[in-house]
């Protein structure tokens, strides 16, 4: 089959690789019909996530048609399904508590050692996201093997387009959980750093959950426009001092809740960003945390901090004092996708949530490297890329 493979920093290629097979009883094989490039994939593309190996198939937002099932799969051939990027067994302590992204049983044992040493506990398995999280071949491919196919995949009713439901795999529930983690109360002002797909869905979710105002921060006019269309007020951090603006816009109180939808590769010219970037480039496992630092400073006393943005290592000059002295509450984590999919599918079906407004480009799988390059370096115009393995090159 054809699949997008990672070969190093800024080097992804579409290669011919062996087709996947059913291995475990609960497996299924999908023929992928749509798969997206995620902001998290950019961390792989930029080489800041450890544990990647040349030739790894990446991609964790995907959907497709079931073409083969193991004896214990509950799926049927021909069904259309969206697959959560988190691989979860459904029966361990964590899955029982719906903490699906903390599943104990989905990361192959030998792959657990690194994260167990790095974080104190092993991470769960994720599709196409380094060997720390299992080394599972991802979904930016013609076919993909889906373990625990009786737990993750959601069957999509005929009549719903791929583009309407694809993002149930990751960014839609991620934006939703980000807003939920902000514990929004009626009348709240919520500030969101980053107007990428995750930030945009967090904005949409926060408004649905009753936020009175959402203030969105980014530097790219097109992304800020998308935020504005959702109903947010916006701050362009290249032309405005974010902390001052937020204080004034919230009547001197500070936002009630803040959401960091930027993650470990924050841009900016603040001295902390430059220092962070230098450390990141020399491979200290250092994260660039400018957005998070700013969010912690901006949020009001006793406020809530939600961090969907991905961090993997360590960070310096963390405003721990602000966290403690202001009595902040922090919630974060990889999304517990399976917890939200049913409800979000219903909301999409009822027209309450639009998922397609942010898609800027649809490309054949063969053109995935172009998609990566532009999603990385042309962020203003390329807001979300969906790859279609069945589409032929123009």
């Amino acid at each position, binding site marked *: 089959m054809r699949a997008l493979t990672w070969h190093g920093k800024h080097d992804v290629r579409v290669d011919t*690789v*062996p*087709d*996947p*097979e059913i*291995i*475990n*009883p*609960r497996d299924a094989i999908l023929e992928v019909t749509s798969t997206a490039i995620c902001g998290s994939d950019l961390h792989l593309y930029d080489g800041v996530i450890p*544990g990647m*190996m040349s030739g790894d*198939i990446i991609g964790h937002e995907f959907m497709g048609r079931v073409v083969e099932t193991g004896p*214990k799969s509950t799926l049927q051939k021909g069904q259309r399904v969206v697959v959560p990027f988190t691989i979860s*067994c*459904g*029966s*361990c*302590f964590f899955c*029982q508590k719906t903490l699906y992204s903390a599943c*104990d*049983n*989905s*990361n*192959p*044992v*030998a*792959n*657990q*050692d*690194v994260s167990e*040493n790095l974080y104190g506990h092993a991470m769960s*398995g994720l599709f196409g996201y380094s*060997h720390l999280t*299992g*080394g*599972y*071949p991802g979904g930016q491919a013609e076919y993909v*093997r889906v*373990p*625990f196919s009786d737990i993750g995949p959601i069957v999509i009713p005929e009549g719903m387009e791929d583009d309407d439901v694809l993002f149930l795999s990751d960014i839609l529930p991620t934006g939703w959980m980000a807003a939920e983690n902000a514990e929004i109360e009626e009348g709240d002002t919520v500030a969101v750093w980053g107007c990428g797909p995750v930030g945009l869905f967090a904005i949409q979710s926060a408004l649905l959950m009753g936020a009175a105002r959402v203030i969105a921060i980014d530097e790219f006019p097109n992304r800020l426009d998308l935020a504005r269309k959702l109903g947010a007020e916006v701050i362009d951090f290249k032309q405005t001092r974010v902390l001052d603006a937020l204080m004034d816009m919230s009547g001197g109180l500070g936002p009630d809740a803040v959401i960091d939808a930027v993650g470990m590769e924050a841009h900016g010219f603040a001295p902390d960003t430059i220092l962070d970037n230098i450390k990141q480039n020399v491979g200290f496992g250092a994260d660039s945390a400018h957005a998070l630092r700013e969010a912690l400073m901006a949020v009001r006393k006793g406020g809530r901090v939600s961090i969907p943005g991905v961090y993997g290592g360590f960070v310096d000059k963390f405003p721990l004092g602000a966290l403690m002295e202001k009595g902040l509450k922090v919630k974060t984590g990889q999304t517990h996708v399976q917890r939200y999919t049913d409800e979000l599918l219903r909301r999409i079906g009822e027209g309450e949530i639009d998922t397609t407004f942010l898609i800027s480009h649809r490309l054949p799988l063969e053109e995935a490297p172009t998609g990566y390059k532009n999603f990385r370096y042309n962020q203003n115009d390329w807001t979300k890329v969906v790859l279609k393995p069945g589409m032929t090159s123009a």
Partner: protein
Amino acid sequence: MRHDSGRHRGDRLGLLAAATVGVVGLAFLYQQQTRNSVPQRRGDSAPGRAARRARFGRYAVVGRTVTIARPRSEIYAFWRDFSNLSSFMENVRRVEETGEVTHWTIAGPMGRDVHVESRIVADRPDSEIAWRSTGNSEIDTEGKIMFRDAPGDRGTEVEAIIAYVPPMGELGRWVAKAFQTEPHLQGRRDLKRLKMLMETGEIATSALRKTPS
């Protein structure tokens, strides 16, 4: 696919002369006192192998506890059928119980099999199984697996302790490699695989195909 942690913990297990029998029991109870201004330290609740400095005679001791969301009786029964052990123990190729003794075939260095014969020294249904190698063994080892109810509705806490005398020569170097560079590694990997099997019915793999092509 495999990562090495790069951390070397080999010297955490001091191998000084002391008792030579009941090592597993000793490993469980014995805590070495450490120097401090505190005149006398009271024992704490941690297992002995977690002690900062511990002595188990000539024996090296590895152990680990996992919680498995299944009833005690089920996990005990699965373990007690020794032929199941090779399904989750990475280096164990085959375990056969014949009458009083159990024969272990372990994948050894350079494609060679290592043989261990053991005898059950304690078998308390649903709570523990302990075994010890006989003279017909290439490795002097004993082990114990304990099952106790986890708090709340969490299933069973399964604790394994394996003690062995590091052998000499080529086999010794292999055993050292298999255990000592990361003494807890093999034990923890095996128990995690047991957990996967009991909780999900399968052992997770990220392979693309059954056989690498």
